[in-house]
């Protein structure tokens, strides 16, 4: 008979228990922050936290990324700054009477492996200035839609990828 967490991946992996409990606690706290501590809400909160833990283990298996706090701090600061740059850039272009846009598609070669880390990077990319990922391209390429193809898009993305890789503990030369 498999334990309750054995159902998650079809094996009784004792290494899964600790990350599963840590995530369930974290998601439970998130529920408490969002919904408040009303006793009536606790039962649905527990169900929601367990369901979210199950989904999280499916899509981001433990060990896929290992966040490094020091890199994460620098990364977060840069992310906030880039969010401001991105918003100001769009606002400037939208409100300029001449509508200064040079939209187009650019192929960017990523060093990140396909899977969770690449998905996280494309999610981040859609919040960065001037880029929206629109799908895969041949090889390890990502198709990127840019508001202004005259900007040095691929160089900027390479710099972002280096910071991101460092924050999630992925070394480019591993692959």
């Amino acid at each position, binding site marked *: 008979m498999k334990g309750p967490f054995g159902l998650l991946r079809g094996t009784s992996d004792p290494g899964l228990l600790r990350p599963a409990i840590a995530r369930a606690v974290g998601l439970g706290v998130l529920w408490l922050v969002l919904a408040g501590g009303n006793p009536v809400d606790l039962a649905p909160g527990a169900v929601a936290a367990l369901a979210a833990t199950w989904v999280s283990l499916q899509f981001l298996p433990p060990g896929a990324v290992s966040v490094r706090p020091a890199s994460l701090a620098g990364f977060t600061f840069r992310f906030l700054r880039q969010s401001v740059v991105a918003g100001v850039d769009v606002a400037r272009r939208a409100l300029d009477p001449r509508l200064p846009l040079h939209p187009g598609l650019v192929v960017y070669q990523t060093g990140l492996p396909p899977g969770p880390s690449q998905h996280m990077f494309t999610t981040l990319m859609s919040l960065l*200035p001037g880029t929206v990922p629109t799908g895969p391209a041949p090889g390890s390429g990502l198709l990127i839609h840019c508001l202004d193809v005259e900007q040095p898009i691929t160089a900027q993305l390479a710099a972002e990828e280096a910071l991101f890789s460092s924050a999630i503990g992925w070394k480019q030369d591993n692959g």
Partner: protein
Amino acid sequence: MRFALDALTIFAVAAGAFFFLAGTVGLLRFPDALSRVHALTKADNLGLGLIVVGLLFQTEGLLAGLKLVAVWLLALLAGAAVTQLIARIAQAGGPRV
């Protein structure tokens, strides 16, 4: 002190509303679906962030502040994820917007 906090709130929330307006102008003026996606994600991300920052000056207690920040982060995550799906469909020649 109260006045200073209120002034910061008014400034940050007004700035946030400005970016929502700019994003909406972009949605109307930008020429194609993919460009419009840019206008909505980037401007609304910053707009919502500024409104959250403004409201943080009015919160009582840590829990209310954490809740505001959590709402912003969840909206960011949802926006960034859905943006890619819409962009992928638009690029694949989906319905013209």
